[in-house]
């Protein structure tokens, strides 16, 4: 097992893990503020088609990324209005957003099926990006570095800034935060918008970096894995990297095992494993009342100010 082999495998793992990490980071902030947004898959797909379409029209991938984030924010804002202003059930609205995102992206994407963009690769100089060892560090699309930066930025924001403290307070005890004078709806809306932006970028990773063609349901369920990852990481930003890369490692390991002829378990087991884990972990959310959980205390509960 040579260094080249390990490096190439690592590049694949990074490619698989990054979108999950991005989407999970956004969802972490949303859930820390007390809102459960199950629409990650839908927001990712909306971001994916937005990024693809804009890049196709302008030939500028940065414009594509910005529009992908903006599209994610728009989609999340629809969710925010329904859930915060109109008080609708968060679980149902989130699922509706997922389904809506799948449908809307497929509808818009019909015009782009079969077209191709240039892949949005590394912005570092060619020699560095393709260096046999350097490509691990320099050979990635900017979104990969952005994901790492966002995880650390989010962790720092939540734990070390006043604004982050306010956000956590809103998620733990919204009535107390309200009585002190903080705008619960405002903080939650901002968190939802942030989650939408990152989910949109995560979706853009699929349509702009991995395979710069458009295909319906390009994300193939990775949004649900991102949701599960937030719970798996115990709502702690620093653990997100570990969880995302564990998923990426397992998914890549499955491919290498099959290609090398090792058949430890039936291949259907490997294929369903990330989603099985997602189901198990999502069940933990609903069991949060039993024995100390790290979930924000107000997760999923609508905010109803007295009087």
């Amino acid at each position, binding site marked *: 097992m040579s260094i080249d082999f390990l490096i190439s495998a690592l590049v*694949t793992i990074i490619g*698989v893990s990054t979108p999950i990490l991005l989407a999970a980071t956004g969802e972490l902030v949303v859930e820390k503020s007390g809102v459960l947004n199950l629409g990650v898959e839908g927001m990712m797909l909306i971001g994916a088609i937005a990024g693809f379409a804009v890049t196709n029209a302008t030939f500028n991938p940065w414009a594509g990324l910005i529009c992908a984030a903006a599209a994610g924010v728009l989609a999340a804002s629809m969710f925010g209005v329904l859930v915060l202003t109109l008080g609708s059930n968060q679980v149902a609205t989130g699922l509706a957003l997922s389904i809506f995102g799948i449908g809307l992206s497929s509808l818009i994407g*019909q015009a782009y099926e079969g077209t191709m963009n240039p892949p949005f690769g590394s912005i570092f100089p060619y020699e560095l990006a393709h260096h046999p060892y350097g490509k691990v560090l320099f050979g990635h699309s900017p979104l990969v570095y952005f994901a790492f930066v966002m995880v650390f930025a989010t962790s720092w924001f939540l734990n070390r800034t006043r604004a982050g403290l306010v956000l956590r307070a809103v998620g733990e005890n919204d009535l107390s935060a309200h009585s002190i004078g903080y705008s619960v709806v405002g903080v939650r809306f901002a968190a939802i918008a942030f989650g939408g932006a990152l989910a949109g970028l995560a979706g853009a990773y699929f349509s702009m970096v991995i395979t710069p063609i458009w*295909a319906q349901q*390009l994300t193939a369920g990775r949004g649900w894995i991102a949701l599960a990852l937030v719970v798996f990481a115990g709502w702690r930003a620093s653990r997100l990297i570990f969880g995302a890369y564990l998923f990426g490692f397992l998914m890549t390991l499955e491919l*290498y095992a099959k290609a*090398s002829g090792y058949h430890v378990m039936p291949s259907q087991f490997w294929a369903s494993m990330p989603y099985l884990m997602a189901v198990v972990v999502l069940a933990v959310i609903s069991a949060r009342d039993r024995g100390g959980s790290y979930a924000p205390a107000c997760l999923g509960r609508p905010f109803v100010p007295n009087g």
Partner: protein
Amino acid sequence: MSKITRRSFVKAAAAAAATVPVLGGRAFAADPVKVGFIYLGPIGDAGWTWAHNKGRVEMEKALGGKVVSSYVENVAEDASAVPILRDLAKQGNKLIFTTSFGYMDQTLQVAKEFPDVMFEHATGYKRDKNVSTYNSRFHEGRAVLGTIAGMMTKTNTIGYLGSYKVPEVVLGINAFTLAAQAVNPKVQVKLVMIDSWFDPAKEAAATETLANLGCDVITTHTDSPAALQVLEQKGLFGFGQGADMSKYAPHAHLTAIEDIWGPYYTARAQAVLDGKWASIDTWWGMKEGTVKISPYNASLPKEVAAAADKIQAGWKDGSYSVFTGPIADQTGAEKVAKGARMEDKDLAVIDWYVKGVQST
């Protein structure tokens, strides 16, 4: 004022009704026959479904106004196909094509409920009075690809990105391997099954995996061009699946297997129009024109192109079958004796890989 009694009213109404058929008789022309299709993926997948849809359009063009067709995309291969098929039957479709293996039981189930609607199931093996099956000899195309891959590989390792372990895929893998071994006895085939017909991100990751394990020519049995894009970036070679995909990978795309369904769909719709439809099993190939090889990449060396042409000619005139013995399975046991040819009935249900395929 005449008395309008109920009796006179009924008499007048009956008289009026009797004239309707005479009046309306001339307006009745033969209504076009409705033909329905259900597709596994989107018509824009540039592969499997795109080819079926192309066939549907050709059928409509060939038969003019005598048929009118409709389709439903993205029909999952599970119980959710049943209400969709029922819906198509109730809408008046007289001929319904179900274009993927996973619709087998659903097709049979709905066919029993609608005995005067004809169903055609692609790549399956169960039939009924009103259910036909049809398939294409894709493995003939795989033999051409295997010949090219065996001659083009420099690492003697070639890759196969599979979907599910169903007979059609196993046939393809075996044909590819046997043809490659015929021109390059040292070649090994690495196989990855991704348990999906269409998942671009996973196809890309699997292609990277195969490339990292030493494969320099990779063919896919999945429906998106994602694998070709990865190969283009890495400077390796590959093939298009279901359609000519050279625009996605101008250097990597050596050739492609194209599925040509138009002639079959036209023939079956014509049979319904003529009232001659019966349940049959059709397995056409290069000879009948359902399998076509795309133009070779301009960079393909002449002797490789010549070898590939020879295989195509052999299939077309029946002188060649890639499944000619001696063929051993992965344990080394001889499954086909020297000189013997595997018959269709064994090919249709094959579930073992030949020696040289490095996976289970």
